[in-house]
């Protein structure tokens, strides 16, 4: 009789019924939504504060530039000394006082202008004031050059070079970044999953060792079966958790925005996009449409299929290493020296991915890391949204990457199973790498 399903079921239930797992699963979405709502709310409050600024204009160059807006109001002082203007600003509880002195020309006036305030002024306020000066100076300067504003606008035209593949397919600038970002999302998901659930596998192995049930179990099943059952059961629990998170978070977000009327656009404004994206998305609607088309053209089905493939292989490789570590030690504090070398390639994959795949998805570093089996599940997924074949990942690279990954998977699982088999019955030995090497020969 095959005992693997029994083991998977037990591991799954043990994980899912665990109190901290249940709490984490249901609390995290609430916390996450809570954070989002809180940020939106705070942003709103922040914007609602209206600042009033006193303006003492002694020059002839500014007249109607200071217009009261939703967030900033201006009060003009006239024909009073600077000191009394300062006093009244303070008395009235205004935010600050802008002093524009007399001067022969605008340049000089602008240079000598001062903003007085009780505390260091907010950068928002300063930027707004500075923009007023900049606009005024700009007008003055092009006027001095004898160029009209309209003429200047014609001159000041940004230029972007168009790109295409040799077959004539048009490329959109920045689309590589967008695509890598999507792939990066997948890669990041894999990394998080490996670190969280690999850790669970490891702790579960340690628990079996410390509770001394291990010898009872492996007198009935093969250690390899137990290890695989544990890895699969734990990952199913993880998939359950992720599914609950995604579902409940989207549901909660929807409810919150529907009932409490928090404006989503507030968030959109404050979200910081990657520099490349912000530039490429902001200006032109027609481009936006092109992006939408390009976005639809991303081979989603292929991408998700490869995500599943790389996810399964990558997760199995790493979690069997985690299982071997769990078997080698007696308690969790001894795991540190072994954990770091596992996390290192994962981190490297993410950072190399974000830096070099974003700028050049087909550069030598990107190619190298998408072939190397310990980083390929993450890096290859960042490259794949660009498609396969021409203009995308060459087919030979994809095949080589998968073959290497499968080969490594078999090798690592075999090694890990050997260490696991010996380690689970070893008590009271602090393992070193040398010791682990010896175990491989038992």
């Amino acid at each position, binding site marked *: 009789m095959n005992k693997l399903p029994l*083991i998977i079921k037990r591991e799954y239930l043990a994980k899912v019924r665990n109190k901290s797992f249940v709490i984490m699963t249901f609390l995290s979405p609430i916390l996450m939504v809570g954070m989002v709502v809180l940020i939106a709310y705070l942003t709103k409050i922040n914007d609602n504060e209206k600042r009033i600024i006193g303006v003492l204009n002694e020059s002839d160059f500014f007249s109607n530039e200071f217009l009261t807006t939703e967030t900033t109001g201006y009060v003009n002082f006239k024909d009073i000394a600077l000191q009394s203007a300062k006093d009244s600003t303070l008395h009235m509880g205004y935010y600050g006082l802008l002093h524009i002195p007399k001067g022969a020309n605008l340049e000089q006036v602008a240079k000598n202008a001062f903003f007085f305030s009780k505390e260091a002024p907010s950068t928002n306020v300063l930027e707004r004031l500075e923009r007023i000066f900049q606009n005024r100076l700009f007008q003055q300067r092009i006027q001095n050059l004898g160029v009209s504003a309209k003429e200047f606008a014609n001159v000041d035209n940004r230029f972007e070079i168009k790109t295409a593949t040799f077959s004539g397919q048009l490329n959109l600038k920045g689309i590589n970044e967008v695509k890598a970002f999507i792939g990066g999302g997948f890669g990041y998901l894999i990394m998080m999953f490996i670190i969280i659930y690999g850790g669970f596998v490891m702790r579960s192995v340690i628990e079996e060792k410390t509770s001394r049930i291990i010898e009872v179990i492996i007198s009935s099943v093969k250690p390899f079966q137990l290890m695989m059952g544990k890895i699969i059961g734990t990952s199913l629990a993880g998939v359950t958790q992720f599914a609950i998170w995604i579902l409940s978070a989207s549901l909660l977000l929807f409810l919150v925005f529907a009932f409490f009327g928090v404006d989503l656009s507030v968030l959109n404004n404050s979200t910081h996009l990657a520099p490349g994206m912000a530039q490429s998305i902001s200006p032109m609607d027609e481009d936006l449409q092109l992006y939408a088309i390009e976005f639809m053209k991303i081979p989603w089905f292929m991408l998700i299929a490869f995500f599943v493939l790389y996810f399964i292989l990558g997760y199995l490789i790493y979690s069997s290493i985690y299982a071997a570590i769990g078997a080698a030690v007696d308690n969790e504090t001894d795991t540190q020296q072994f954990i770091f070398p596992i996390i290192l390639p994962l981190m490297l994959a993410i950072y190399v991915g974000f830096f070099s795949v974003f700028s050049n998805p087909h550069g030598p570093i990107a190619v190298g890391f998408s072939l190397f089996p310990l980083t390929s599940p993450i890096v290859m997924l960042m490259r794949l949204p660009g498609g396969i074949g021409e203009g995308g990942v060459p087919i030979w690279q994809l095949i080589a990457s998968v073959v290497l990954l499968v080969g490594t998977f078999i090798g690592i699982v075999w090694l890990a199973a050997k260490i696991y088999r010996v380690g689970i019955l070893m008590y009271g030995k602090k393992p070193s790498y040398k010791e682990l090497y010896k175990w491989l020969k038992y």
Partner: protein
Amino acid sequence: MNNILVTKEVTKRFGEHTALNKVSLEIPKNSIYGLLGPNGAGKTTLIRIINQIAFPDEGEVFFDGEPLNAHHIAQIGYLPEERGLYKSMKVGEQALYLAQLKGLGKSEAKKRLKFWFERFEIEGWWHKKVQELSKGMAQKIQFIVTVLHRPKLLIFDEPFSGFDPINANIIKDEILKLKENGTSIIFSTHRMESVEELCEYIALLHNSEKVLDGKLSDIKKDYKNNVFDVCLEVEDGDSLLKELEGKFKVRSSTYLPGESQLELTVELPFADSKEMLAHLSSRANIVRFVETIPSANDIFIETVQSKEVHE
């Protein structure tokens, strides 16, 4: 086939260290077989080989006449020395899981568990978590799980550790009942008094080698050295003692004149005690005349120590 388990020159090495060196054993069916030896002698390694947790580098193991294979796992029950349970699982659920791993169907396992829980009067524990149980309670569950699938061969490694004397007795009676019902039992322990009480056969492992095995009564016969413990009721002990010392080899003696009792330890050149007994009975009232048979403990210590002297 009269042996449930036979090992032939089984050798197991861990790197440089040889854990078992050409160990050959024959474990008869329907008997209790004591596997004895100091710590590190190789008992656990041998037991793990029988359970197919470890595999021998050389040699063969036969179970019920067949070379040991994966099917035999369901016919062996093993209670390891290092034993535990999942702490956060419920008792019933866990027992069911372990029984299913041994190949029992769910409903059959449930039925049998119910029987054992009633027998040990622990029906109320089914929904308890293991962490709420005491060590002795957990041991009972482990015992039930070990025997539940009615294996042909049971292996108990230090089964009484963790039990109070009352529960140890309950378990001992259960082991004897299992033996009566035809189960063969391997019993690994340091507690020599339980060896005397339970085992018909023993094997002694020392430094990875088998140094002694066979029927316990035969081994005892081999180890006895014709020494008799004698107690006589006599008025004039001193003169009798002198006389006896002239005729027999007296190892030690005490005479208590007030109680008119003479105690002697006498060694005879051969096993025939008739002559001495006749002589003694003509001279004094015999209070006690016993041949001293070495205990399993004596044999254990003597064998191990003599090995260490020779090496």
